[in-house]
């Protein structure tokens, strides 16, 4: 039971990192990405390959995966951030589909649908993170780091530029900001932070396969921040907690047939997305004033 709870908490912290990093572009910059699971996957594969062939140290794998994600984020931001917001959603959806195909078809590198197995135990400063407790501590530290980075960034001049561009791109440009550059950097930062989650995930479950990095996963991450609240610091973490506790909670409802549990869970969060969008688009702990969060 303790193992189960530790496991759940590790997954919540990984999802918290995913949600917080996506929230950085959705909530603060008004850029809607559907490719977050793709970056999650790119980082997980990078981390797994480095652990197998180079070093199992988190201090090697995490920076490498972050750099990889930031570099690949340019593939979608360079073409699509020059034009209207819709195009970024479409381009990121496209990248998500391409990434899934690459994960499952580039068999020499990714192992195809079977994935990469036998990722070694992570090390940090020479210590092996063998127990769940130690890994949880590292995951929570990473979550705190990501949340901290976003908290600080949002309060720098860069964060103010982002919000200015989100609220009125033309006005921000008139004040001498370069919207395309600022948004491109924001997407790269968000993807790099997402990379931390990918590496942690690869080490935690010790194997990676394409199934985890589908468009459904992208939507799940999006659902976390929408349910929790966009543009807030703790909303994404709350959302990650809710999304992970939901399946655990459903197993206690014994009248539900076990076979339909996965579907029931999806119906609940799909339904929650619809109802929240109609009645409370800013999420559970979002600002009640919609104008701040969603007007662009």
């Amino acid at each position, binding site marked *: 039971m303790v193992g189960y709870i530790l496991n759940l908490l590790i997954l919540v912290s990984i999802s918290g990192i995913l949600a917080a990093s996506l929230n950085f572009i959705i909530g603060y910059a008004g850029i809607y990405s559907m490719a977050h699971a793709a970056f999650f996957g790119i980082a997980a594969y990078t981390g797994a390959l480095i652990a197998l062939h180079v070093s199992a140290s988190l201090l090697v794998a995490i920076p490498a995966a972050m750099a990889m994600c930031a570099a690949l984020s340019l*593939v979608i931001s360079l073409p699509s951030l020059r*034009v209207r917001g819709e*195009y970024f959603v479409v381009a990121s*959806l496209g990248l998500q589909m*391409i990434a899934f*195909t690459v994960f499952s078809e580039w068999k020499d590198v990714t192992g195809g649908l079977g994935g990469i197995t036998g990722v070694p135990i992570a090390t940090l400063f020479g210590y092996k993170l063998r127990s769940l407790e130690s890994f949880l501590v590292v995951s929570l530290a990473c979550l705190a780091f990501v949340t901290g980075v976003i908290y600080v960034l949002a309060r720098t001049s860069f964060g103010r530029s982002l919000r200015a561009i989100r609220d009125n791109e033309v006005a921000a440009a008139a004040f001498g900001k370069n919207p395309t550059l600022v948004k491109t950097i924001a997407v790269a930062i968000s993807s790099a932070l997402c990379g931390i989650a990918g590496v942690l995930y690869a080490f935690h479950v010790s194997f990676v396969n394409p199934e985890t990095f589908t468009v459904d996963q992208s939507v799940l991450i999006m659902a976390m921040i929408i349910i929790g609240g966009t543009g807030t610091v703790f909303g994404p973490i709350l959302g990650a907690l809710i999304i992970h506790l939901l399946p655990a909670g459903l197993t206690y409802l014994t009248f539900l047939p076990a076979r339909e549990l996965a579907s029931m869970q999806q119906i609940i969060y*799909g339904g929650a*997305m619809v109802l929240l969008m109609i009645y409370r688009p800013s999420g559970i702990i979002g600002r009640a004033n*919609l104008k701040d969060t969603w007007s662009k």
Partner: protein
Amino acid sequence: MLFLQLLVDGLQLGALYALMAVGFAVIFGSTRVFHYAHGTTYVIIGYLFYWLAERLHVPWWLAAAFAAFAGVVFGVALDRYVYRPIQRDEGSFFTVFVASFGIGVVAENIIIILFGASFVSISTPLTRAADVGGGIVVSYLGIFSVLAAGLLFTFLNWFLARTDVGVALRALSENPELVRGFGLNPRKLSQYTFALGSLLVAPAALVATCVTGLTPTAGHRVVLISIAASIIGGIGSLRGAGLGGLILGLAESLAVWKLSTGWSEAVAFVILLGFILARPSGLFGTRARV
């Protein structure tokens, strides 16, 4: 010879994609609703058709008509009970998209509970392939889908150019405020748009259920192809969306000539990224810039 066969297959696939895309393009072009649940309409029509025709043995034309009608009702209901309340206050493009996606997730899982997650298809003699000479094989349904696409596009062009509702729909995509000024009700027009767009996806859903079969998750691919085709063709251009669908179908099929089949699924999206990079306004679009 392989090339010719792939070309013929690509034309059939392209016709299906064109049929899928044009419904999305009608809705997106006129109302600017990012109707992700367009794929859901497709899946609902396909499953109803399957359930009526294959399980209850209703005559196929009655099953098809009923399924198409249900698709129209679904589309109009979404506009009325989901999109409209969101757009009433501060509705942004993305809020609508998320709600639309949520609808898709709910519908998909209800279908999984009702019919199971695995693949269903309808057996009909029409899917049998006929040799048209030179070893090239074409199925009757393949010919039917190419003809259906041609006919529907002709009808659509006539409808949008010559009827009052059609002209009003085009006006709605140009300037909703002006439409109001002329005493027309944009809300009502938006309902017509959803009815028309949902109806247009029906032929693709019916044919594809027979030809390739259907899974509860098929909607994602349908709407992604529709979005890609609409962007490639240029937002607001129905001709463009149709041509975009045709290009994507041809490209996906011809890719098999050089690549293994697994990779061909990504071809459409590589083309999409290419268009966003080089020509974001698409083939016939005019207003892609901010």
